[in-house]
């Protein structure tokens, strides 16, 4: 067999370059606005960069990290980040799953009901934060009075200014805003379960709970796992609600690592310190991703 005649060099080059020509504009913008600042930001973590101080800019080595090790507010932020992320994701998942199951059964008016319960997702997050801050405000909102009437609050006060309860404010807002995301994702997964499985189970006399336990849940498990893993990262980094509702207060009791970065950069204009915290956050997220990958590998090995 003779090899196919080689096409002229320029034509081959053109063919090679074609996909790159299509994707170049997007890649250039991403590189310039995300990757370059990422690298520059990492370098700030080892420099003294303060906008208000014209003499700053020098190399300070690991000074920021030493300061960070003794920073009590940062330690509080680490603990807060854990509770904020875990509680938000789990409550969103629980209510999102129930909603998806409710919407999976056909009923009259399902389209409208679906549009209405998904609406919070379209509300801008800054407005979600303000809106819930107003609802928790006893002068203008009903929630403190209702919680008081239910005996959950000793007096109709604002939980956002109560150091022990403040974190529940942003969590409530985040749950309200994020339920649709879980519900939509899980609903899509539910609708891909073949219906003959249910029919067979019904013929075998399985009750609804057995059907949920042995058909629905195993089918949903991978989707739930992936969604929860990705959402955890996203919620951990999500600062809008905290910044709008409490600004990290009272006394740093709602400050998360991500909102602490913003506070340092935006309020103190201390870019060096903010970048050092960013680097720590990045390492924490990488460690999280690594643990997940290892866990996954273990599970796959076990299945073999």
């Amino acid at each position, binding site marked *: 067999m003779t090899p196919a005649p080689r096409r002229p060099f320029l034509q081959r080059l053109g063919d*090679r370059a074609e996909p790159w020509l299509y994707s170049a504009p*997007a890649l250039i913008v991403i590189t310039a606005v995300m990757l370059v600042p990422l690298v520059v930001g990492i370098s700030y973590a080892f420099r003294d960069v303060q906008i208000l101080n014209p003499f700053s800019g020098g190399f300070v080595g690991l000074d920021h990290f030493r300061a960070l090790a003794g920073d009590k507010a940062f330690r509080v932020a680490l603990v807060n980040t854990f509770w904020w992320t875990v509680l938000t994701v789990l409550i969103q998942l629980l209510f999102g799953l129930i909603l998806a199951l409710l919407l999976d059964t056909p009923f009259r008016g399902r389209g409208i009901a679906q549009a209405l319960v998904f609406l919070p997702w379209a509300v*801008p997050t800054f407005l979600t934060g303000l809106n819930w801050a107003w609802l928790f405000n006893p002068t203008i909102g009903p929630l403190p009075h209702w919680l008081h009437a239910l005996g959950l609050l000793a007096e109709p006060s604002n939980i956002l200014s109560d150091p022990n309860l403040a974190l529940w404010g942003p969590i409530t807002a985040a749950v309200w805003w994020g339920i649709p995301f879980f519900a939509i994702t899980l609903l899509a997964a539910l609708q891909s379960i073949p219906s003959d499985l249910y029919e067979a189970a019904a013929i075998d006399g399985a009750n609804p709970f057995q059907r949920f336990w042995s058909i629905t849940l195993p089918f949903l498990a991978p989707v739930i796992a992936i969604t929860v893993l990705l959402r955890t990262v996203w919620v951990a980094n999500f600062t809008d609600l905290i910044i709008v509702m409490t600004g990290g207060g009272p006394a740093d009791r709602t400050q998360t690592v991500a909102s602490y970065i913003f506070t340092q950069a935006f309020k103190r204009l201390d870019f060096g310190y903010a970048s050092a915290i960013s680097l720590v956050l990045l390492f924490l997220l990488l460690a999280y991703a690594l643990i997940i990958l290892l866990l996954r590998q273990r599970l796959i090995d076990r299945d073999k």
Partner: protein
Amino acid sequence: MRAIGTLAHRLAILVYIAFALFPLFWLVKVSVTPNDLLYSEGIRLWPSRTTFEHFRFVLAHSDFPLFFRNSLIVSLATAFAATTLAGFAGYALSRFAFRGKLTVSGLLLVTQMFPLVMLVAPIFKLLSPLGLTNSLTGLVVVYVAFNVPFACFLMQSFFDGIPRDLEEAAMIDGASRFGAFRQIILPLTLPGIAATVGFVFTAAWSEMIFALMLISSNEKATFPVGLLSFVSKFSVDFGQMMAAGVLALIPACLFFLLIQRYLVQGLTAGAVKG
């Protein structure tokens, strides 16, 4: 037994709807409550008198129309620019098998995973000498970059849904690949393009962190920046604040209605982003 189950199901749906709508209902309620009734009827579900005074004030005597216009310009420009860039890149990802494709997809995915808040400081420092801080153009540039990766995945999934035979037939008939892309594929993807524009618009309309950091003057403030500074300055004018809040809700809800059909696709493509 069956009837009870059905009743419980409908009730549960109603509870969810009430929970979803209540905060928005309260926003609207306070925005139409006259000032003299604001505290005396603070926790009544609907005031005994309603007024549009707060809306009149906000529209006529405040900077909110300006903030609204700034946000509209930024969000529309971002939506169209990001969708254009993502359309090309998504097409490349959908139609070509090329060396480096996995790297490109991986790069796009990574940009969705790391905390954007860590870019606040370096982006401010890098844009400042270019004169792009306190500028709507600067905001658009930043927002386009943040939204392109997600929009790429979305556009790729729309292109994947269109059979390759179509443009292959056109290319056999003598069209160039770009010609086939422009004349055959793009028109078929129009609904997908509209959905992508809607998603990016909504994201840009909601963005607050970078707007707070980059914008320093009232003239350039987008809606979140204007609303938050209004709240910190006039924190007792609840009626006006909430009237402004209702205004911020309008475009987001319009786009929500537009993209509703594509919600599942959008959320799975941007599962990382939300």
